């Protein structure tokens, strides 16, 4: 890997390479898929993949006080049984192939949360002449939700999961909620 020290390290920005394009299901019947989405939403199993300080806040989100079990989130050890990959921490060059392998080994439908500034943009460690890290997880794998913070609080991680839930159900829950509120206002 040819790396010269003085100019900034930038891996060509991720073009959605064909291997990451999801092949939609054979039966694309909308109500069925929405029903499945509602089922997926309430059992998002993250892959236990903590790299650095954000991993401790991820564990804190899993423990009694913030307790992500309420959302049906059960951390899984292997990518084969997980839906969400939480990239929690800085991504050095040595870890890039590992992240790609793990992401490939996750079955569809899968989602990625970039937790912490390091996973969003290299965070406090990205500067002109940084030789060691990749500036952001989205340079390697497609990311769904970004959670800023260094480290972000456990509540921020839970909100990230809720944001993924809204994304999965394509905003159906919010749309219904807005519709109910509008209906109540009209009735008054």
């Amino acid at each position, binding site marked *: 890997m040819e790396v010269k020290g003085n100019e900034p390290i930038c891996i060509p920005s991720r073009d959605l390479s064909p291997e990451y394009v999801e092949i939609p299901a054979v039966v694309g019947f909308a109500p069925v898929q929405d029903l499945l989405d509602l089922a997926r939403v309430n059992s998002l199993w993250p892959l236990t993949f903590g790299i650095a300080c954000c991993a401790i806040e991820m564990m804190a989100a899993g423990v009694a006080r913030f307790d992500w079990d309420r959302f049906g989130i059960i951390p899984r050890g292997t990518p084969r049984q997980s839906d969400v990959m939480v990239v929690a921490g800085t991504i*050095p060059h040595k870890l890039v192939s590992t992240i790609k392998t793990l992401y490939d080994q996750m079955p569809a439908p899968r989602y990625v949360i970039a937790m912490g500034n390091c996973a969003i943009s290299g965070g406090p460690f990205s500067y002109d002449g940084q030789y*060691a890290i990749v500036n952001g997880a989205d340079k390697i794998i497609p990311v769904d939700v970004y959670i800023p913070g260094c480290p972000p609080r456990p509540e921020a991680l839970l909100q990230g999961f809720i944001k993924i839930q809204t994304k999965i159900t394509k905003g159906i829950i919010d749309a219904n909620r807005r519709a109910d509120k509008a209906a109540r206002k009209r009735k008054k």
Partner: protein
Amino acid sequence: MLNPKTIDDTSIDQRVYTLNLGPQHPSTHGVMHLLVTLDGEVVLKVEPVIGYSHRGHEKMAENRTYEQFLPNPARMDYLSGMIFNHGYCMAVEKLCGIEVPRRAEYIRVITSELNRIASHFIGAMDYAMGLGAITPFLWGWDDREHILDLLEGITGSRLTYSYGRFGGVRNDITKEFYDGTRRFIDRLRGRFWDYENLINQNIIFIKRSKDVGVITKDVALDYGVTGPTLRGSGVNYDVRKMEPYSAYPEFNFDIPTREEGDCLARYQVRMAEMEQSLNIIEQALDHLPPGPIRAKVPRLVTPPKGDCYCAFESARGAVGFYIASDGSRIPYRIKVRAPSFSNLFVLTEICPGHFLADVIAIFGSIDVTVPEIDR
């Protein structure tokens, strides 16, 4: 059994194979990669591969002024971030000859000891979880949340603190922090009894920990092991006692050590050290002197030419900041002596001969933080 020295994974004997206890593994406390050569269940060779969490702290130090480098130490060992932060400030103060007022020293000791307890909670309870005990893991983290609330009250962050400044600390401790710490000390003293019953007398925990991964004194000397891992082998080396810094000479606390040197001894040393830290905090709160919390220090510190090595005790061992300064505002070279680096490679010496499950227990009992090793 096959002789570990002569075996490597390309040997024709089919039974020997090499396994990646790799970067992503529930039991490797972060992205640690252990290349384990196995004969069936028996481990022949363990080779730790590191570098999966390397961020180039030391190269960054050569681009940052001393103040800009303040947030970095807490991100090296984020479990004892406060101790690293104060240690870095102490190193620069030693280099520039800045006198820190006594109240600031006391506040540093209180916050460092609180952070040490929080780090020992993770170290000890992650070890227990490595053996399959989930409840102590949840208890330990629950008690740790109390500490995080206290420290967040005065510093604003939960894990990676930038509370220390050259010449003292950023702001004074509040009344809530003072009362909260008092309540926390009483509460935690009552909780040790629960941990004692739940884990220390648990027959499975003892059977899995006793005589597993014994580190003798010579091996510890050979590998430069420090911290609770060393104190579990009977050497009472603690930088707070041997090279007293900050306000530690004014408190009396003893260094718990165990003679056996196995995983159980290291676990017991960590639990005993928590009680000692509580004593220190209590004494510090009793005699908290009034006065300023920061010395008069120019905005940008420019230390004289020369170098200095400042050692202090983190939850994992003796940390050392070696700073070479060329008289400018930017350090010429900062080298961080990471205790986890030396503690980690003891694995290659003590793991052969154990089962694979014991290697995970030994690795948990040594309690390393990966970004501190890779810096």
